[in-house]
């Protein structure tokens, strides 16, 4: 960067007929000097202060976000574990409630079945007694039937013939009819 190239041949301010302003060599030196000053200072400020600071800010933010994401992940894990534990407790409670209900139901069913059995047995016994007494009565009645028939037949024969009937023949005839 040559800074001493400007030859002061022209009077400053005579720009109306001077060279095209950006190509005026008279203004090269002051522009280069001030450019070097300002750009140099800008470079120092940016490289020493601004850019490291922003780098730190971005790094801190990245670290913070990563930490927060980790925290959130562990929280989520805990929440999922708690959810699973809750589900398990609920399932256990449901199972035990069902077991209790089932056993109660079984007990009640067994009780009622036993009672019914006893009742049926008693009824059956009574039925059997009744049948037995009916059968006894019937047998008794049937044994009287022969006697009645014999008497009736003897009376009929005596009435028709006018002489006493032969009971032995009548008994044989009744026995033959019954057989």
């Amino acid at each position, binding site marked *: *960067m040559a*800074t*001493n190239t*400007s030859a*002061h041949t022209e009077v*400053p*301010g005579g*720009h109306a007929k001077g060279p*095209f*302003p*950006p*190509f*005026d060599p*008279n*203004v*090269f*030196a*002051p*522009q*280069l*000097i*001030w*450019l*070097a*000053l*300002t*750009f140099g*200072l*800008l*470079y120092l*400020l*940016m*490289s020493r*202060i*601004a*850019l490291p*600071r*922003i*780098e*730190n*800010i*971005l790094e*801190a*933010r990245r670290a*913070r976000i990563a930490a927060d994401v980790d925290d959130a992940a562990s929280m989520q894990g805990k929440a999922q574990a708690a959810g699973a534990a809750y589900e398990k407790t609920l399932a256990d409670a449901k199972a035990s409630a069902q077991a209790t209900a089932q056993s109660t139901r079984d007990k009640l069913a067994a009780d009622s079945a036993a009672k019914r059995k006893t009742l049926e047995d008693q009824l059956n016994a009574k039925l059997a007694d009744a049948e037995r007494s009916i059968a006894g009565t019937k047998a008794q009645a049937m044994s009287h039937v022969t006697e009645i028939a014999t008497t009736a037949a003897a009376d009929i024969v005596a009435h028709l013939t006018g002489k006493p009937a032969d009971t032995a023949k009548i008994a044989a005839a009744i026995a033959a009819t019954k057989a």
Partner: protein
Amino acid sequence: MATGNAIDPIHQFIVAPLAQIRIGGIDASFTNASLFMVIVLLAATFLMIIGTAQKSIVPGRLQSAAEMAYEFVASTVRGTTGTEGMKFFPLVFSLFMFVLLSNLIGLIPYTFTVTSQIVVTFALAALVILTVIIYGLINHGTHFLHLFVPSGVAPALLPFIVLIEVISFVSRPISLSVRLFANMLAGHITLKVFGAFVALLLSAGGWAAISPLPLVGIVALTAFELLVAFLQAYVFAILTCVYLNDALHPGH
């Protein structure tokens, strides 16, 4: 803007001393250009140092802007030169901020555009090229000269290729500086000429009816110049990265 004679679009580029200073026979006057260089420096300091003073985890507006500038230039440098190019990050960042703020502040009416001076842009370009040459020679010695000798070229073609490479290398500071300077110069001249049209039409009787047309033109051009101001700063920064990449990895 239009004072005295209506059309003098060159007037805005005149460098006039505000305070005469001479150091050892060299003119070091504090000029309007110097004033705006100082303003650019103050603006950059305000944004990048005062704006980040709180160092908050959740940034405010100014700190967001400062961080955005940092991330933008950092990703440009990293993307162009790789991680080892980050040692030039402060240089590229300073260049980007200086050029961007010069361009943007220069768009405000009645201001002076630091980057519309070829000597300023050339000095910045020379700084880049000198950095490339010095760093390249120190770190790679003569290997740095392989930059001019691409591998895998037929020996018969080599002299021409080397000549072309040398010419392209020498033209880099010229194209880098002239691109920025010419963009700023042309943009400001166009704005000035359109502004002068408005003034001329207003003072031309019935023609005053069409004076809003160039005014609309100025509005559109100002938006365009804002784009150019940013784009040229970005182009300057990314070309700096590309040239520095040659110093970091010569011989492709």
